[in-house]
């Protein structure tokens, strides 16, 4: 399933549950993926599919308790992340793995200047002097396309617009030259014209800096544009994984296929009626014992209701967790 290329980040069988008053919530169920240096992996899924929790679990950014990582291994740059002490983790967070969060309004501290917030990781992780950090901070602002960077270092977050704040977040995430950048719905709160600016910026930065990126989103359009590989998540599991052109040309899982069909197109002929996926996502109160998508699936048959499918290879670099075979339209022979 995972190929033999060099990997910077390898996650195998990750399982995260939340122990709440109303019982357990199985947010992430045996998720495995790997990331090669310089690669952009897109993670698509609806709200509640566990895509953010998976990424937060990687660096133990979740409140524990109630969250608990019960199984799996996380290897970053040859090191075992699950065995790291809090102090070791702090050295990785923000330095070797950068984070960009969804909402640029709430993830910047309103009482500190932008300059202070960009300099903070530089001073802490890179042990830079104040002067050197300030010079570097101005360079970073320029890199993310903020005009007049030296003067703007003294500004506070409320003096920036939404798109500009997201650029500042990107500058902070890039400050220590991370090997991996995790972007959690970075353009969801932005308008399309601003989103287009940020996507251009990310493409440009990838070429300049060559870091690997994990891009979490629910927007298949964004994924089609920037990702190299895509993992589709549903109910805490990866249900399909392939290279981006392969996934859009040859989707296998009924959920992926339905998702692509529900999207209205901006050009071409107009569909009389939108395809919809009936029903609701499951509530994840217990570990999956059958296919979680079965109640909403068009192709469901007996086996789906009794056994949870494991990911199986279709072709090189394309795997799917489904008992149904899209090429024959029959139950798969496994």
């Amino acid at each position, binding site marked *: 399933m995972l190929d033999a290329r060099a990997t910077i980040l390898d996650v195998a069988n990750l399982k995260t549950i939340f122990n709440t008053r109303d019982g357990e919530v199985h947010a992430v169920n045996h998720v495995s993926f790997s990331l090669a240096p310089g690669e952009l992996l897109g993670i698509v899924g609806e709200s509640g599919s566990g895509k953010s929790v998976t990424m937060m679990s990687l660096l133990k950014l979740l409140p524990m308790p109630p969250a608990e990582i019960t199984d799996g291994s996380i290897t970053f740059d040859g090191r075992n992340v699950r065995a790291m002490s809090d102090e070791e983790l702090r050295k990785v967070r923000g330095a070797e793995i950068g984070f960009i969060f969804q909402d640029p309004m709430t993830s910047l501290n309103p009482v500190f200047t932008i300059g202070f917030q960009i300099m903070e990781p530089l001073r802490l992780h890179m042990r830079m002097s104040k002067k050197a950090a300030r010079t570097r901070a101005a360079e970073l602002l320029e890199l993310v396309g903020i005009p007049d960077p030296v003067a703007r270092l003294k500004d506070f977050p409320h003096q920036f617009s939404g798109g500009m704040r997201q650029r500042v977040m990107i500058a902070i995430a890039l400050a220590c030259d991370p090997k991996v950048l995790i972007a959690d719905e970075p353009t969801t709160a932005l308008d*399309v014209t601003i989103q287009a600016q940020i996507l251009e910026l990310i493409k440009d930065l990838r070429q300049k800096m060559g870091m690997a990126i994990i891009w979490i989103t629910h927007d298949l*359009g964004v994924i089609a*544009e920037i990702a190299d590989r895509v993992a589709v998540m549903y109910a805490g599991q990866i249900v399909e994984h392939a290279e981006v052109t392969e996934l859009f040309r040859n989707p296998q899982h009924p959920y992926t296929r339905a998702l692509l069909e529900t999207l209205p197109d901006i050009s071409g002929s107009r569909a009389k009626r939108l395809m919809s996926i009936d029903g609701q996502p499951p509530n994840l109160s217990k570990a999956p014992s059958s296919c979680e998508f079965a109640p909403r699936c068009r192709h469901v048959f007996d086996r789906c209701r009794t056994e949870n499918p494991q990911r199986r290879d279709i072709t090189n670099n394309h795997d799917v967790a489904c008992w149904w075979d899209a090429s024959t339209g029959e139950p798969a022979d496994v």
Partner: protein
Amino acid sequence: MFDDKKTPLLRVRNLKMHFPIYRGLMKKQVGAVKAVDGISFDIFEGETLGLVGESGCGKSTAGRCVLRLYEVTDGSIELDGQNIAELSGKELRAKRPEMQMIFQDPQASLNPRMTVGSIISEPLVEHRKMTKVERSARVDELMDAVGLARRYADRYPHEFSGGQRQRIGIARALALNPKFIVCDEPIAALDVSIQAQVVNLLEDLQEKYGLTYLFISHDLSMVRHLASRVAVMYLGKLVELGPSETLYTAAQHPYTQALLSAVPHPDPAKAGNINRIILEGDVPSPSNPPQGCNFCTRCPRAIDICHQDEPEWRQIGEDHFAACHLIE
């Protein structure tokens, strides 16, 4: 200026909504946020007019003004020949049942302490003289119409998912048999797979009850699917209005062109060969719009006249209007 062959259900002329800004001890008015600054459009019976634009362009304010949820600064809003902007409180109340609204956030627009049944029947209590039995029969009918099981009438909003809550909001809007519904981003808070369910429901209801929608959204592809005509708004003004097909294939205004090109394509094969127009900078503040054309600060094709004179809103093709100096 407008085609008078068909009589429009709603006729909006030169609508303005300026929110005053007060400063200092004496609360002196020092300026105004020109959220909506002189827009004109018609909506014909049984059609859907899409209103698109980026956040802060005034599209939601425009939608609220049309229902007179705000006291408008200037302009007229005629629904069925009656000017809503000038009605007295009593007359307006009598008019309310004809025009309803579906809100963006189904979480915030439903009272958490009321059961679904009482939420849906509240408009009936306010505007109709019905007995309890009649009301509960009407609630059942409405719940059937929007695809909610009748047995849920005694439950509270928090027991429902986002898509189901939006259905409750739709049932409430339908309760008084309105002619005209303003849908203010009704699907923005929902997941992709649920969006399609709600959009299909809105279309079914339109067909069944002959409803007329003003559909406000920032999702250009969804508007293309739903609307017969589309209006594009930028910084309080309409920049282009035309039939959906024309607007999406042959947009004339540079802002519409940029907006359409910015939409990501869910197809990697096509993603590479789009001529994307990346706009520089951000939207200016509506309290201090630029001189001349509102779009001149970001327009890739702006010429001298754009920085001096405001372009006129005029017809440029069949049922196609725009405000731009560059269009012949």
